[in-house]
């Protein structure tokens, strides 16, 4: 029997949402200050509207402080699912008011794409966009990639953290408490921010010849999008704008760092580094990256579009790393990417679908699930082939020796299948609107796996239904379904419960 939520449940949810909104309001002061310093009066007004709305909603939520009820598992999941709907909704206000979006839905699409670190964009005339608005787009990547709820957890100690933490698709607690884990995640991000900004800024000025301020502007934007595996870029031609192998290399390092789990960062910082390569997830991602890169190289070589091995390797490597890490940067135009067929298309599409590591800023099915699924299948085959009395090891190494239980294998396979269903949903809708199968599949995988590479289907003129479906894919894909199902369950219980 479904139990209808009571007023106390709503108070708990509103209170925790309020805490998160207050944090986002504070984050919104950054682009506000940028607009003020840059005398960008129109964007300034729109940022004030957004900050005001976040703060009002946050403070109203805090007024609903629950009497004694604690945040349980379902509350936490509902809070996370709503956070990832409402933050882009309010966060889209400055975008909608900028005049660079065809409609409110387009602005919402952009904000959803930003916060889920997808990187698909509906911005029109990006090359004349106000820097403060451009900064906000990229800051959304940073907030979403690190986890908005993680931000709230790192600032507010208190109960309920664990359910919010898991709700935001974080699978492992690195340190004993969730608050210290959240703070560690932000420390990792801060260190990378300082180092990444310094390197990109220096290359921008010394190698690319940009003015200092512009070099660091580009560096900051590219850092946010690379480390948080987002994919927005400050200019319309993505990473192809820079025409520099060394800039691509620096960006690739950041993309790779973003695709690694924070647990692995912890192991590399403090733990025995040898253990890093013993992890099932590390081995899986190295294997799948090598496989998809080989597919792309062979596919491109067969078409003969690149005349030299270094050129072919550089372009294939960057595109596949961008796809596998879930970033979505591109050094070739989308019209050209659309012509990559056969194995090259397969390599990129598979890389996008597989994604990065669990508990990283990347999207996609995730390497841990792929590794567990492959191990479970291998074990089944061994059971069939080996003599009945033979003992098949059902353990795996992931920050320590662990047992691969049937429940764990089923869970990994179930989520993987849900991703496949999500890919097919977007593909089907795009085909219904006349997109070719290959393009429809590519774009849907890109949205659901939060990648952002595009072959041109994502466009301000695309049908409204397709925009909504892609937004749903980005949202559900980022939260890895659990929180989304919890929200649906909560709504159903509210409507039909007793």
């Amino acid at each position, binding site marked *: 029997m479904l139990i209808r939520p009571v007023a106390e449940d709503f108070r708990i949810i509103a209170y925790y949402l309020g805490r998160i909104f207050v944090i986002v*309001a504070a984050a919104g002061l950054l682009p506000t200050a940028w607009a003020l310093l840059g005398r*960008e*009066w*129109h964007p*300034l*007004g*729109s*940022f*004030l*509207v*957004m*900050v*005001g*709305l976040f*703060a*009002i909603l946050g*403070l*109203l939520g*805090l*007024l609903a402080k629950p009497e004694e009820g604690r945040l349980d598992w379902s509350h936490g999941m509902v809070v996370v699912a709503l956070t990832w709907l409402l933050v882009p909704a309010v966060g889209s206000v400055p975008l909608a*008011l900028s*005049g*660079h979006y*065809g409609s409110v839905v387009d602005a919402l699409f952009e904000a959803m794409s930003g916060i889920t670190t997808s990187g698909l*964009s509906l*911005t*029109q*005339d*990006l*090359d*004349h966009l*106000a820097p403060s608005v451009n900064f906000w787009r990229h800051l959304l990547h940073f907030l979403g990639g690190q986890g908005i709820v993680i931000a709230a957890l790192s600032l507010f100690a208190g109960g309920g953290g664990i359910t919010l933490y898991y709700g935001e698709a974080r699978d492992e607690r690195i340190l004993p408490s969730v608050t210290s884990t959240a703070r560690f995640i932000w420390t990792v991000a801060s260190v990378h921010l300082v180092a990444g900004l310094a390197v990109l800024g220096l290359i921008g000025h010394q*190698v*690319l*010849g*940009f*003015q200092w301020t512009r070099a660091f502007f580009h560096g900051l934007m590219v850092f946010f999008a690379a480390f948080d595996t987002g994919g927005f870029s400050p*200019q*319309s*031609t993505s990473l*192809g*704008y820079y*025409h520099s*192998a060394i800039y691509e290399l620096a960006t690739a390092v950041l993309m790779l760092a973003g695709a690694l789990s924070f647990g692995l960062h912890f192991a590399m910082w403090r733990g025995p580094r040898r253990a890093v390569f013993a992890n099932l997830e590390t081995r899986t991602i190295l294997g799948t990256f090598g496989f998809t890169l080989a597919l792309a190289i062979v596919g491109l070589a067969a078409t003969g*579009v*690149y*005349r*030299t091995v*270094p*050129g*072919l390797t*550089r*372009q294939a490597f960057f595109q596949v790393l961008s796809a596998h890490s879930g970033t979505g940067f591109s*050094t*070739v135009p989308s*019209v*050209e990417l659309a012509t990559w067929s056969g194995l090259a298309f397969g390599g990129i599409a598979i890389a996008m679908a597989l994604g990065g590591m669990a508990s990283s800023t990347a999207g996609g099915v995730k390497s841990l699930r792929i590794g567990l699924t492959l191990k479970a299948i291998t074990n089944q085959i061994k059971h069939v082939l080996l003599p009945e009395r033979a003992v098949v090891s059902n353990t795996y190494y992931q920050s320590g020796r662990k047992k691969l239980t049937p429940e764990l294998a089923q869970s990994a396979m179930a989520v993987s299948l849900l991703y496949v269903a999500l890919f097919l949903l977007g593909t089907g809708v795009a085909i219904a609107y006349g997109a070719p199968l290959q393009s429809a599949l590519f774009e849907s995988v890109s949205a659901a796996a939060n990648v952002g590479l595009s072959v041109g289907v994502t*466009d*301000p*003129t695309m049908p409204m239904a397709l925009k909504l479906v892609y937004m749903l894919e980005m949202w559900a894909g980022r939260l890895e379904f659990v929180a989304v199902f919890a929200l649906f369950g909560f709504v159903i219980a509210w409507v039909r419960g007793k």
Partner: protein
Amino acid sequence: MMLLRAGALAIVMILAQPVAATAQDESVVSVSELLADGRAFAGATVTLEGELVGDYGFRRDATMWTQLNDDPYARNPLVDSGRRAGANVGVGVRMPASLAEGLDPPGGYRRKGPLVQLTGTWRFHDPDRGGESYLEVRSLIVVEPGRHIDESVNWAVLPTGLVAVGLAAALWLLRRRAER
């Protein structure tokens, strides 16, 4: 001496011949056409017309890299009351630094970059540059100089924002007072 002059003239004529022949093949193309079938234009001399946007990257090899957009915003940016017409359409261009001297600043926020006509060789997947594609510019004509754009500010938004922040501040003060 006469023989030397005749020889030099002959060399100049021989060197000039391919340039003249290429000039006859020149055609004005749009960036969309160029990107849609980049291979078809590989190595050809093409002319593009559009706005220079982003940055002027003067590199140590005495070249300058920038981006040329030939979308509708090249003439009417959104910030200058232009109409929405989809995403930008642009391509990377490289030119001798000397050619870029004296150019108005590139286009960006509240800035319309110079509208130029660039003629050069379309380097498609250039093997010498790791497979990059770009226009190697040989000549540049400024069609329209760049200029500052006065943004049309919607003055209703700023007061609305101030009111929203004011309301939030009042709410925060009320909450603090209630907590005491």
